[in-house]
């Protein structure tokens, strides 16, 4: 176990010298609110700083490194996995005030943003030029680009556009010793050097602090044609999605919700008139004249899997409502019980029906009253979000949740060759599982890389990639 330095008054004073007293806090009220993200963990930091410049970030890191104080970068604090929590105390580096869009270069199809820019804010600006940054996590109204880079966030449109990693051209990062480096290249193609950019994307703030991001952007589709289908079982739904993929059609999204989640989400989005069942959304985007025929092809292909309901639309407002209903799956489930814990497994797409059926049986296997589960996700990527709903204040239910996690990953996901996280990151909640996924040797190699970047292990300790620490379950 690493021995960290003690956070002292002298460090507090030095931090205030760097950022100014108004951008530093160790008040109990702020410590309380920065103790949490969207996961069920509570970890209290020693202090919070809100830097405004890369120079300040550099000075803060030098100080933390010198005194062996843990330092945890945080964006919008939207993580469902405990990534931005101070598991062994230390300094929270709240990056959300570094939130300027520095340049929008439409001709070269790229933008430069500071790490604290909110995803939807960037897309609101890009929309004025008819462009967008495609990764579309459900947290887009609040999550920051820095957070998306650190978790390699993805979302509904992954089937067509990939994840954040595919859109990052270059990064400005600060190493734990305070050195500022640029990774990647500001041009659209480069084969030069090791790909440090792709290494840092998804590293959950455990290798370096991301301060600036160069992103590719692309034109918005001119039009959409969208269909909603209901299936009486998940196997037919999944087979329908596979058929579309096999035919070489690439819609904007192919999304699903199981029956329980669909009911909650459609109620939440006030969409009426659909029969109960498993919900499939096919959204085709592109040129005006091509989207209708593309959707026709999809619908012809899925017919043999006997959807019990089919509706199509090219009305933009209704399409947006359907997409938003799917994006509202988590919040809709959150209204059912006091605590919501969303998981993030990925299996090969063809194994999705097996995984989904096994997932549905977890609550019965747990046999604890008050804990239930919904399921939804990106059917074309094999990425599902089984979401446990329960009351964390009831010990029996909280224990059942952790047991449910074990069943999920140990008995369902890994035996199918899957991954414990498709787009959320390991964080604190899945730290126990990374070795199961990769084996001891691969994880040891990851930790060597971590030590190369961060010899004193000050950056975001306790998380899967920055460990090893046991999962904190209190």
């Amino acid at each position, binding site marked *: 176990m690493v021995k960290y330095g003690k956070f002292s008054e002298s460090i507090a004073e030095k931090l205030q010298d760097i950022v100014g007293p108004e951008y530093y*806090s160790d*008040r*109990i*009220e*702020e410590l*309380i*609110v*920065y103790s*949490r*993200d*969207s996961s069920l963990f509570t970890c209290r930091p020693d202090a*919070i700083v*809100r830097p405004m410049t890369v120079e300040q970030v550099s000075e803060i890191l030098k100080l933390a490194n010198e005194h062996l104080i843990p330092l945890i970068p945080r964006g*919008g*604090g*939207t993580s469902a996995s405990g990534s931005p929590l101070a598991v062994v105390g230390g300094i929270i580096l*709240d990056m*959300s*005030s570094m939130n300027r869009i520095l340049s929008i270069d439409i001709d070269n199809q790229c933008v430069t943003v500071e790490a604290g820019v*909110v995803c*939807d*804010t960037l897309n*609101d600006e890009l929309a004025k030029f008819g462009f967008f940054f495609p990764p579309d996590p459900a*947290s887009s*109204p*609040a*999550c920051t680009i820095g957070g998306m880079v650190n978790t390699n966030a993805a979302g509904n449109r992954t089937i067509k556009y990939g994840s954040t990693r595919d859109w990052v051209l270059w990064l400005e990062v600060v190493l734990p010793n305070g050195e500022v480096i640029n990774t990647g290249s500001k041009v659209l193609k480069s084969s030069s050097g090791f790909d440090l950019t792709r290494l840092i994307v998804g590293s959950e703030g455990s290798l370096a602090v991301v301060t600036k991001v160069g992103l590719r952007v692309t034109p918005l589709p001119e039009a959409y044609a969208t269909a909603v289908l209901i299936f009486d079982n998940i196997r037919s739904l999944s087979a329908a999605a596979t058929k579309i993929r096999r035919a070489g059609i690439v819609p904007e999204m192919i999304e699903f919700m199981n029956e329980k989640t669909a009911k909650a989400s459609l109620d939440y989005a006030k969409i009426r008139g659909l029969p109960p069942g498993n919900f499939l959304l096919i959204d085709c985007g592109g040129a005006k004249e091509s989207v209708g025929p593309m959707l026709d092809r999809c619908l012809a292909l899925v017919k043999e899997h006997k959807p019990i309901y089919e509706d199509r639309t090219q009305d933009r407002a209704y399409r947006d409502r359907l997409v938003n209903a799917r994006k*509202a799956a*988590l*919040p*809709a489930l*959150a*209204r059912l019980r*006091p605590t*919501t814990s969303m998981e993030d497994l990925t299996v090969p797409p063809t194994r999705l029906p097996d995984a989904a059926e096994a997932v549905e049986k977890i609550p019965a296997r747990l046999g604890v009253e008050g804990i239930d589960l919904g399921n939804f996700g990106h059917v074309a990527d094999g990425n599902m979000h089984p979401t446990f709903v329960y009351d964390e*204040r009831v010990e029996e239910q909280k224990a059942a949740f952790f047991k449910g996690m074990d069943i999920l990953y140990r008995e369902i996901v890994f035996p199918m060759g899957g991954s414990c996280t498709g787009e959320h990151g390991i964080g604190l909640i899945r730290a126990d599982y990374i070795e199961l996924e990769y084996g001891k040797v691969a994880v040891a190699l990851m930790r060597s890389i971590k030590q190369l970047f961060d010899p004193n292990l000050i950056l975001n300790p306790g998380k899967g990639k920055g460990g090893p620490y046991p999962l904190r379950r209190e």
Partner: protein
Amino acid sequence: MTKLPKLSDYAEEVQKCMRCGFCRTLCPTFSSISWEAGSPRGRMQLAKAFLDGEVEFTDYIQERIFECALCGYCLWRCPAGVKTIDVVKAARAYMLEHKETPQSVETLLANLSGEHNLYGLSHGMRSDWLGYPWIGLKDKVEVGKKGADVLYFVGCICSYSGKKNMTGKATAQILTKVDTDWTLLGQDEWCCGDPALLSGDFGRALEAARHNVEKARELGVKKVVTSCAGCYRMWKQEYPVLLGEDLGFEVSHISQYIVEALKNGSLKMGRELKSVVTYHDPCELGRLGEVFEEPREILKAIPGVEFREMSKNRYLSKCCGGGGDLKVAYPDLSMEVGMRRLKEAQDTGAKTIVSCCPACELQLSDVAQKNGVPLQVLNIAEIVARALTP
């Protein structure tokens, strides 16, 4: 009457917060404060920590609670359906009970108690506005007329703002033009109680509800019309809850009344007003009252008006900074919030910004004046009155 809520009643409510942070991005005050405790999510976590016994109410928490403009953006945005602004109001009620309310808010509440208006001006002056030379309504309207169809509930700002606000006159012109049998409460009108409710003084809000409803019932009116978003929301949403009963008459905002009159032909706007106009949704009429389209319908129907929407509109509309005690407790922050909204209005290229709430209008005018922004601010009733067919 329903039981008045206490902060402890919201223990389950704050537990529902998923801490997803969706409430942060467009929160009008968080954009300035930038500390997590100053976000709606932070406020919910602080309320939870207090209810769990983890922290006492400190001055810092008092500030964070009273910085909230109660604009309702977080309430609308919250995926988990947390009644965020009810929690803030209940926290304010707790502070009031424990004498921890900011001095400026205490003064406001004292004004409401003594003189039944926001400003602490004499209650005896409440009807004076009718006789101002620039209003000229003194002998033209029968105050307290029993059996009138419509009661125009004027509100504090229109009654006491002098030349600064001509909404009362414009509303009266419209009611007269439609040939409605209308009246006023005059000296029997008390502040609607909205400022008390927003300050956590539920008792005073209840008192106002009882008084105003009783007086309206004594007149036997069929409808109450307001020209203020706050008054409208109180009469429409809060009075029935506070009193625990149906009011027995309709409540309309003047924008709804105008649309009805335009549709049935009793009001005609024939005068051309050459102007580029944008519209600011007052939080209490729009997001909280769900009246969005009527003001827009009106503006689009005025001959010569080119209507341009601000980028954040309807449910996403940004607060002007004038509400929820913000202007009273933290005037500088209120100005900052207001300037952000005016900037959006300027970006449309509009020369006039119209709203449906005298509080928003006073705030936006104030911000425009202090920052040298050349925008004319009008109430919907004022612009309609200017466009009326002679």
